[in-house]
């Protein structure tokens, strides 16, 4: 990844009638970056991608790609190429003609086109399949052809609209790693739209989380996970126990809080939170909690509760613990090290929490509907 900016988006807004699909979008992407736009369906992420591609106009703001202002530049003149959600493989053309489609408009000779197509197919591990018909391809192969067809154009930016959503789980996971490897090898900027948090986290250098047309937070996956800016982002990425807290004292880098159910502790200020209130929302990731039948040592807060549900996930076991004075059960995830399920429904257990794993989520107003 270089320090060169490849995409600069400033104040872009798109409305459909009175509906604001994308609101005041500001985003700068570096050359060679793998960036994901993550959000629930209808949040405007695909619209944002289509604006970058040039398929969608926008009312306000400006987009620069590779230093050039895009403005009225149509999609076929932009240094971007797209992998469509449906893959859009031309059904009347074979694999070679699909991949070579865009090269026909360039100055390359037939021989050069052939070489480039072969090279691109090799790259996506479909070497030698030039003559295969479009309708003879499996889902995974279609995805690879779509990728090769876009990459063969050597775009400055590759845009991917939910590229893996049509594949089954195993294939999807294999493709995630493969696409990541390919992207790092080629050094091309990838911008991917997805609603799958795991996909976004495993593949991206940075993720932008969108809700209702607004880009809420842009960060590295690990920062999004450890310091989400509000409840929405926190709940969209990974599991999270939300707890109400009261701020008793505000220091430069810490907050002294009284967390409902857990008691008093001192937690770090989350730099991504903009406004702090006396009424605070905090969160604890399920895997950061200790659960034990005996009272454990060395924790900043201990609380007793009763196991209300147990869910076995294979690689981990989730316990849901009812604690007096809390409306929602607390979820605890325990890695399945020893192939044992230690607690059953109705057991009385202790929960141990380190104050370092309690995340400041800012104002409680961002609680949304389920107060």
């Amino acid at each position, binding site marked *: 990844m270089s320090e060169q900016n490849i995409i600069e988006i400033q104040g872009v807004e798109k409305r459909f009638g009175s509906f604001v699909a994308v609101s005041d979008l500001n985003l700068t992407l570096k050359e060679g970056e793998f960036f994901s736009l993550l959000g629930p369906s209808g949040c405007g992420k695909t619209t944002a991608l289509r604006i970058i*591609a040039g*398929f969608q106009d926008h009312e306000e703001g400006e987009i620069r790609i590779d230093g050039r202002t895009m403005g009225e530049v*149509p*999609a*076929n*003149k932009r240094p*971007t*190429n*797209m992998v*469509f*959600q*449906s893959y*859009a493989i*031309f*059904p*009347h053309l074979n694999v070679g003609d699909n991949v070579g*489609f*865009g090269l026909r*408009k*360039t100055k390359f000779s037939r021989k050069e086109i052939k070489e480039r197509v072969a090279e691109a197919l090799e790259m996506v591990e479909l070497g030698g399949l030039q003559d295969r018909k479009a309708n003879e391809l499996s889902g995974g192969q279609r995805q690879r052809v779509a990728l090769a*067809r*876009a990459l063969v*154009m050597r775009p400055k930016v590759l845009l991917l609209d939910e590229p893996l959503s049509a594949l089954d789980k195993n294939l999807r996971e294999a493709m995630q790693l493969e696409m990541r490897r390919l992207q790092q090898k080629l050094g091309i900027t990838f911008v991917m739209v997805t609603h799958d948090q795991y996909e976004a986290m495993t593949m991206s250098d940075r993720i932008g989380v969108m809700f209702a047309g607004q880009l809420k937070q842009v960060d590295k996956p690990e920062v999004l996970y450890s310091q989400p800016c509000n409840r929405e982002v926190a709940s969209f990425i990974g599991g999270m126990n939300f707890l109400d807290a009261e701020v008793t004292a505000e220091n430069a880098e810490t907050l002294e809080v009284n967390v409902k159910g857990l008691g008093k502790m001192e937690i770090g200020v989350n730099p991504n939170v903009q406004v702090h209130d006396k009424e605070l929302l905090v969160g604890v990731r399920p895997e950061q909690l200790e659960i034990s039948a005996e009272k454990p040592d060395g924790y900043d807060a201990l609380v007793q509760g009763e196991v209300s549900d147990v869910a076995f996930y294979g690689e981990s076991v989730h316990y849901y613990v009812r604690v007096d004075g809390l409306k929602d059960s607390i979820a605890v995830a325990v890695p399945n090290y020893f192939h044992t399920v230690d607690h059953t429904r109705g057991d009385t257990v202790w929960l141990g929490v380190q104050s370092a794993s309690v995340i400041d989520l800012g104002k409680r107003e961002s609680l949304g509907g389920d107060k």
Partner: protein
Amino acid sequence: MTKAFRFSWLLVYAIAYLVFLYLPVLLLPLFSFNDGTIVAFPLKGFTLKWYAQLGQQDTLLQAMVNSLIVGSVTALMATSLGLFAARAYVRYRFTGRELSEGLVMLPLVIPGIIVASSMLVLFISIGLKPSLATVILGHVFVALPFSVSIMKSAFDDFDQSLEEAAFDLGESVVGTFRRVTLPIVAPGIVASLLVTFTVSFDEFVLAFFLSGNSPTLPVYIWSQIRFPAKLPNTLALGSLLLLSSVLLLLIAEYFRRRSIQSSD
């Protein structure tokens, strides 16, 4: 009443209905092979002479050529217009879309005699003499609903991202249409050409009003029915037309189905 009893009456009704509908049509080829000028039972014996004589009648051949010209031009014009109209109807949401679609489909329900007489009045008032050209204009009007609905079904399942993908890969708007849209809807185009050709080839009322001194085949056939001696020839000709119409429509249906399958 048992189910089987009810079923069998329904079957009798259905068969009677079909016989009533199609028996007269089947009499046409039957008498065209009959060795006699009077169309009546009993049959007089088998002959192919009525068919053989068709080739020697110049006015008939001229009418045939007229019909082929009118049918071909009509098919091309109606299908081109239908192609663009259907793409717009399926792809875009614009003001007046539903109204315009309704108006395009209207010829299906307007009585032909109304269309024919008003077109004749219109053409004469603007100085267009009845000719094959005026027949073509009339036929495009009545064939358009057929081509629009065939082309619409070809576009319905056409993934729009295919066109976007081509455009995204650097192709121009026209190039995208030529290299992606046209090949993918090609089976629909063939189906539309065949159906609109058949519509025009069989059409009588408009052709009768608008053809002037150059009759199309149906108009020629109508004029021949007045001469009893020519009747068997007319029957032979009619049988051939029937056969070719059915064949064309079968081929068209084959292509229409292929266009729906291929776009999946």
